[in-house]
């Protein structure tokens, strides 16, 4: 499969090489986003992701197709987690494979940056004594 889009309970980082490996690719680039234990010096205990799944999958598919056209990629993955995630859990994994490394490095950056801008997924941060929807307010 050229494009692999998934919204899952738990991101599986162990099969990404097989998912992106391709006989015409000489380079594979992967970005994994994970739960960090602090935000602006405040201790983060967990994150909770909510998705508008139908639209999120549609938008992720469009982003993958845009990247394939722009960088002539052989394979693309976009995986995002939903539900509550603890510190160090992987929450998003994007990757691309291409003939040469420049294309997959640039594409990978585009995949994660555009996903964060456009895909309808919302992240709630759990601090010691409150919760906050990230980016909701200016």
């Amino acid at each position, binding site marked *: 499969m050229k494009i692999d889009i998934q919204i899952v309970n738990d991101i599986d980082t162990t099969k990404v090489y097989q998912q992106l490996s391709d006989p015409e690719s000489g380079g594979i680039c992967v970005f994994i986003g994970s739960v960090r234990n602090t935000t602006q010096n405040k201790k983060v205990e967990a994150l909770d992701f909510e998705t*508008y799944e139908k639209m999120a999958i549609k938008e992720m598919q469009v982003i993958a197709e845009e990247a394939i056209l722009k960088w002539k990629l052989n394979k693309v993955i976009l995986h*995002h987690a939903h539900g509550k995630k603890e510190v160090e859990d992987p929450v998003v994994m994007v990757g691309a494979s291409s003939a040469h490394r420049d294309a997959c490095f640039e594409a990978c950056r585009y995949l994660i940056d555009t996903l964060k801008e456009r895909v309808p997924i919302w992240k709630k941060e759990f601090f010691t004594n409150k919760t906050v929807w990230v980016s*909701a307010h200016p």
Partner: protein
Amino acid sequence: MKILLFGISKDIVGASSLLINDGKKTPTTVKELKQFISNKYPEFNTLSSLAIAVNSNYAEDTTLLQEEDEIAIIPPVSGG
């Protein structure tokens, strides 16, 4: 007209969907829907942005709303 709610919009309304049955006052465009919810729930005015999806696509202010459309409020996204 049923509106799907996610993230902070669910907290603002206090439910996971919103039913609008106001006869002639029911919004007919995306712009009217934005005005309707901002008037009814002023907290929407404090958000960094507010988008509407119609049939799971981002919609323009001029997009017309039909009773059978799947309509959702998209508050500022924060995936990744």
